[in-house]
């Protein structure tokens, strides 16, 4: 019985990783850059909802909408100011380091604006928990909403990329920027759009992360961000279904490792499994097929 509840806990932790990993993998798949500031955009989303809903008493839907709009603007701005000038001129390493810089910038701005005190986030999810086996097994409302949002977003993104003109342009840019430009695709615009979508996803991830683990500090996004990055690599970075699978697998391994091996060693076990998977399949679980497909 406790195995089943560990499994459910693993899936619920994994679904949070998965939804963050979707944003990572989306940006990587198209712009071919690791946006390390993604975790911190999530934090900004979390704070926006916290102030709108918990402090100002606005309805949760408006708070979420506000966070999506704000994070989208933030994503576009970051891309425009910090990444675009470097993309043509410098190596990809410079862009990566800039992303780390942006991440610290956002954390410290949040520290200045919101202060260091921990804030308790009120969950915006109102779906009731499901109780099975006479209350022995509880699936929280947050888990249900997170998993459903993950699947909806995954399907939505796949359809968008394969069926719309803008999505096709993204595919083209991800394959060959130079050639795409020659074909009349606005490469910068496409990458901006990618960041806009990635950051909007970050706002939703922030909402779900903070609802599941209701404590909010300027560093809230950084560790889940790194774990989600691992999940994205695990599933095959650049692959959208891979992010979902990688996230869930990572969460389950982490929880089962904690439960049956050692609660201190949870992270060590996760990373050990990552190393083994990458040795056997260097592109991640779903990496290969998707590499040319986004």
């Amino acid at each position, binding site marked *: 019985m406790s195995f089943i*509840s560990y499994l459910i806990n693993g899936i619920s932790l994994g679904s949070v990783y998965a939804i963050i990993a979707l944003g990572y993998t989306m940006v990587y798949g198209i712009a071919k850059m690791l946006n390390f500031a993604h975790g911190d955009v999530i934090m900004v989303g979390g704070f926006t909802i*916290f102030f709108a809903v918990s402090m100002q008493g606005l309805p949760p839907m408006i708070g979420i909408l506000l966070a999506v709009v704000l994070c989208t603007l933030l994503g576009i701005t970051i891309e*425009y100011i910090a990444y675009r000038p470097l993309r043509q001129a410098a190596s990809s390493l410079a862009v990566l380091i800039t992303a780390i810089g942006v991440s610290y910038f956002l954390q410290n701005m949040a520290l200045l604006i919101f202060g260091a005190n*921990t*804030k*308790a986030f009120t969950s915006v999810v109102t779906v009731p*928990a499901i109780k099975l086996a006479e209350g022995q097994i509880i699936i929280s409302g947050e888990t249900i909403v997170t998993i459903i949002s993950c699947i909806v977003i995954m399907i939505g993104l796949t359809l968008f990329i394969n069926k719309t003109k803008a999505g096709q342009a993204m595919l083209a840019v991800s394959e060959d920027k130079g050639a795409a430009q020659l074909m009349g695709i606005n490469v910068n615009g496409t990458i901006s759009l990618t960041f806009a979508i990635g950051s909007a996803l970050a706002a939703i991830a922030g909402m779900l992360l903070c609802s599941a*683990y209701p*404590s909010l500090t300027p560093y809230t996004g950084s560790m889940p961000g790194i774990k989600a990055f691992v999940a994205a690599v695990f599933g095959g970075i650049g692959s959208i279904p891979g992010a979902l699978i990688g996230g869930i697998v990572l969460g389950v391994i*982490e929880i089962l490792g904690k439960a049956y091996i050692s609660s201190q060693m949870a992270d060590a076990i996760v990373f050990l499994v990552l190393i083994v998977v990458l040795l056997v399949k260097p592109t991640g679980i779903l990496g290969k097929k998707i590499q040319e497909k986004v």
Partner: protein
Amino acid sequence: MKKKVVSLLLAASMMTVMLAGCGNSGSSDAGSGSVGTQEESSDADAAETETETNTDEGSDAAPAADASGAVYKIGAIGPATGGAAVYGIAVQNGADLAIKEINEAGGINGHMIEYNFQDDECDNEKSVNAYNTLKDWGMQMLVGSTTSGCSIAVSAESANDNLFQLTPSGSSVDCITNDNVFQVCFTDPNQGVGAAQYIGSNGVAEKVAVIYDSSDVYSSGIYEKFAGEAANQPFEIVSSEAFTADNKTDFSVQLQKAKDAGAELIFLPIYYTEASLILTQANAMGYEPEFFGCDGLDGILNVENFDTALAEGVMLLTPFAADAEDEATKAFVSAYEAAYGDTPNQFAADAYDAVYIIKAAIEKSGAAPEDSVSDICDKLKAAMTEISVDGLTGEAMSWEAGGAVNKEPKAMEIVNGNYALIQ
């Protein structure tokens, strides 16, 4: 061209935002700095007027004028900004309040105290820099640092200089390895032993689970001593699970294991941020054990927007509660609230006590402000083992030569969203 202009504008606006942010913190720093200077200048004024009147009276009085013009210089260090700012600001204010009170009452042996607080952002290196700044200012005694890591870093320097150091809240045993350093708060091992004894002797529970942070000195230090003492107590540790700094959001496994083991009480030798998550997650699981913690849980009620109903009934060993009924605490709390507009926490009380402990040690030893830093330190070191101080954080506090404090721990329970002393 147009694009360049736009991107320049955006960059400029981002810079302004950044500078505005810096400006804010800068001005607040300047604000607190100017309070310090104001005090200093008013002290200096007082000294000057005294000297003037004395010279008017005649040259005989001149030596006495020198003596009364000399001041004790107490420095303090703590994180006034950054992640542990709550603690540092409390120490800054607590010490400030005690020094103002002492100065208004005529100082120590007729000598005023000058006070200077430096921010270390809870960073070891910055703490040593702050120490050096205070040394240049002429510090004779140090109240600091506020956190364990910084205290350890600073104590290496203060031992070299043989400067008297009294840490209000650095609770690690490593803070007091040098003989010039003393503590106001309990050491971590004492808290662990105290908690185990309290649970055992009061029969709070028979089956106890522990959730601790294995990556933190404070938490693992308490846990080890707690587990050691538990062997002598009539309760059993049925589950002890750890988490680490990198893995501190999901506690479902730790709680599930405690639940499966049938624990009636969960001991949480951790800080309040993680504890608030544990309480929330236990509630979501429908698991309702008792919770027991140490002074790290102090502050859980101040987590913004936290549902304090979840913390109802949580017990903690902490030396100070702002709503205690005794006269000294009441007077301190109202004076603190009037001066700083905030309810004092344990750290403020520790720092307040620290200043009075220094006062008691000076009075005992007769250390004069003209003595060298090293002489003052030697005299105070000897006096510390002889004095007994009744403070906010303990009755009849006394010290071993090693620097650890002897006092009774107090157990508090959270009742109706407030800390209440368990009688």
